[in-house]
């Protein structure tokens, strides 16, 4: 809900970004989520990342489905257009928005219910299309807004607040996305701001569909002992498979790394994503290696985080379609309409 006007106090000496904007200029309306909800920490990370990237608010579009998580777009960058669509259908609306105006920076925020149940088909096909967007799943293992039913990401053995344990296999968005052909797949935790900010920046810079699966505990329905999506459980079992660093075009890669443990990926715009790997023989640029790594650790009950797979060369939707570089919505009618003479010529073949 966005009706509560949020006081924007202008603290003296706040930092301004390249556009001369303050961090508060990237905020939205006051959150109405439960106190302590993981989703709000993700909102904070989005605000910081967008401010640091100095993205002009009007160049951004924020889209979502339905759910507590899907309320997030209301809580950041009030200067950007937002689209709170129907349950599970954010990806298709984002596809249309990007089709019509490829210059827009698309951020889609979804939930595990929104993307892995009702929206699973659209989730899969946004990835297959390699739609140039940041696709963020705020993953809490439950349907928060409908009061805590298990979602498809609930792990086998994880217990509900009332005690019953889920026995179904969980749909792991990370492994599934990689197997389906995602070009950028990362996982993070709402409690790990620095990692999250870096992944958000890298995801926005990535020229394709950047999927971020962010464990985001639901304090009201799924933060108890026995839950595998609680703050405590996640902190205990996560380990950083890759430490991600996003280095924009301007800046220099300063830090030195021992060979083998680092992968540096250069993006089309010249910026770099630098990955420091926890495990030397894990190759986040190879599907086979990434999947093996993820499943190996899943078997051990571990939650690998960081950027887990990237192939920056796979073409995104417009590259595949050969669409004009200029956004389609910018074309004047005269550039689109063939006119009377052409119509007459055309019809000669219809006699």
């Amino acid at each position: 809900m966005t009706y509560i006007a949020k006081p924007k106090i202008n603290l003296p000496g706040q930092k301004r970004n390249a556009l001369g904007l303050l961090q508060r200029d990237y905020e939205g309306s006051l959150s109405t989520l439960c106190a302590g909800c993981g989703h709000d920490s993700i909102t904070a990370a989005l605000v910081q990342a967008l401010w640091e990237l100095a993205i002009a608010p009007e160049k951004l579009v924020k889209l979502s489905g339905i759910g507590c998580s899907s309320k997030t777009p209301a809580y950041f960058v009030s200067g950007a257009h937002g689209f709170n669509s129907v349950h599970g259908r954010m990806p298709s609306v984002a596809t249309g928005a990007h089709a019509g105006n490829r210059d827009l920076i698309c951020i889609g925020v979804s939930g595990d219910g929104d993307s892995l149940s009702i929206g699973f088909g659209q989730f899969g096909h946004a990835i297959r299309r390699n739609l140039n967007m940041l696709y963020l799943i705020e993953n809490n293992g439950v349907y928060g807004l409908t009061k805590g039913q298990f979602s498809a990401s609930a792990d086998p053995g994880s217990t509900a607040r009332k005690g019953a344990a889920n026995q179904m296999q969980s749909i792991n968005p990370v492994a599934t996305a990689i197997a389906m052909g995602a070009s950028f797949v990362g996982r993070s935790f709402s409690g790990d701001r620095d990692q999250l900010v870096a992944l958000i920046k890298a995801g926005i810079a990535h020229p394709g569909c950047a999927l971020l699966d962010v464990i985001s505990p639901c304090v009201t329905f799924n933060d108890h002992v026995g839950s595998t999506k609680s703050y405590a459980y996640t902190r205990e079992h996560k380990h950083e498979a890759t430490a991600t660093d996003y280095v924009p075009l301007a800046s220099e890669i300063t830090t030195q790394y021992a060979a083998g443990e680092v992968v540096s990926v250069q993006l089309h715009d010249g910026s770099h994503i630098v990955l420091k790997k926890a495990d030397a023989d894990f190759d986040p640029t190879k599907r086979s290696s990434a999947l093996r790594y993820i499943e190996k650790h899943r078997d051990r009950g571990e939650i690998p985080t960081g950027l887990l797979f990237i192939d920056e060369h796979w073409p995104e939707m417009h590259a595949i379609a050969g669409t004009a570089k200029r956004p389609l919505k910018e074309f004047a009618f005269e550039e689109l309409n063939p006119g009377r003479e052409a119509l007459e010529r055309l019809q000669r073949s219809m006699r």
Partner: protein
Amino acid sequence: MSATQSRVNDFVLKIATVNGTGSASANGMLMKALFRMGIPVAGKNMFPSNIQGLPTWYEIRANRDGYMSRAGRVDIMVAMNAQTYKKDLAEVSPGGFLVYDSTWPRERDLKRDDITVLGVPLSKLCNEHFSVARLRILMKNVAYVGAVAALLDIDLDIVRTLLEESFAAKPKLVEGNLQAIMLGYDYARENFTCPLPVRAEAMNGNAGQILIDGNAAIGLGCVYAGATVGAWYPITPSTSVMDAFTHYCEVFRHDPETGEKRYCIVQAEDELAAAGIVLGANWVGARAFTPTSGPGISLMSEFIGFAYYAEIPSVFVDIQRVGPSTGMPTRTQQCDVMLCAYASHGDTRHPMLFPANPAECFDLSVKAFDLAERLQTPVFLLSDLDIGMNDWRVPELSWDNSYRPDRGKVLGPADLDKMEKFVRYTDTDGDGITYRTLPGEDPRGAYFVRGSGHNSKGVYTEDAVEYQEVMERLLVKWDTAKKLVPPAVISRAKKPTRLGIVAYGSSDGAVVEARDKLMAQGIPTNYLRLRGFPFGAEVLDFLHQHDTVFVVEQNRDGQMKSLLKLETNNVADKLVSILHFNGLPIPAACVVDGISQHLASEVAA
């Protein structure tokens, strides 16, 4: 006129073949040859929902008076499919002719003394003439063109020219095809008295006319409307709309230098996604549409309600097929009228457009986008399989170069400069239509699109009064829509009459022909053809001016009659349904009989 004379340029030629055997091009040649002889023609496909090996029919009606609806009779049957021979034989009208491949004896038990059966050993002729096995099979379908040409006196030069045109790419093929044609032609000339009394004769009935199908016209219309985003999921009979849009974009929308495409077509994963794509693209200011058929509309229902309530322009093209459910995907009906009018849960209602032929498909495609953006709401273009996938003779499409699209009430940065604060859903003009902004332009125009409760400012609300205010304003917008949809077309009888007919879409042809027949029987009728919904004042007037109004449509439940009942007062009880819903295009006879019977029953009563 004399009995024979009466059968010149007034006949139905039906060809029965097996699908996937390439008979389509042969049939197309016959159709086009007759057209070029200046004879008004209409061609209708009756094909199976299958790819290869099942019965398929092509029916050509040639009519010197220009009646183009399905005649419901067969004068010449070309029975190339042994599987359906019995059925095909039975279908020939008394006094008619049946041509079949006499290479193999036809079933003995099948006899008809009231028609003339002409055997042409097509396979035998081709087998003797052609050495290559593949050719032998292909060519027998070409050979019957020759036989029919001889029997109906179709101009061979025209046939030759057509061959040359269609094989312009590979001229080598022309010869072979021509030989096959001559095989049939010569055999017929030698063995039968050609031409038959039922025959073609050059006339000048097609000046300023073209042959086109409705789906091609819609694809072309969307190009001319300036649509840049097309989203779809394949479904018969709408698939060829996107095929056409793609084709015409390739012709007209590739940047001469760079080859860049000034359009983006997305084959979605399903219809729900196609709808979402259309909403997303229109939201950012690109004209976008999706073609589909009944099942697709059902699946899009949730998004349609969203577009209604969040007020997002969007164009939905429904090429109707036989329902319910999967129904008969390759047969025609007008059965999604009620669904489209009120699609989705909650209080919703949507403008609809009803083209009656491919020419109108072109014009109303353009109109659909103007309406959608002016009204900021989903607009439905309702065509059907008959219009969409059959070959129609229509007046040449025209275009006014001075046309500019109506993008509706859109505010850009310059407009925002002039205003205090932008709010999305406040009606400042009294027409129920509010102003929108486009993403990517100006932070001052930023607002939040949502399908949940919102107030006149566009802010989320659960407040009773704020919610109701927006819902009531949408009714004002609905009244505005009544003035914007294209008015109905009214044609009056020479004599005054209390009898009215209302029809729409592909039922038009049958009504036009029926009215002349009725007039000839001394029954004058006035005719109102609906082109849009909601109904304008002219529709109500027409209903009030008549004692009995026959509503002709191609569905079981009288769906348009239902809309007339719902949206009008004091007329419900004069509406009489005339329905045709077996999946074949409605013939004039259905209308004539329906009206005559009703009048008779009234007399009886």
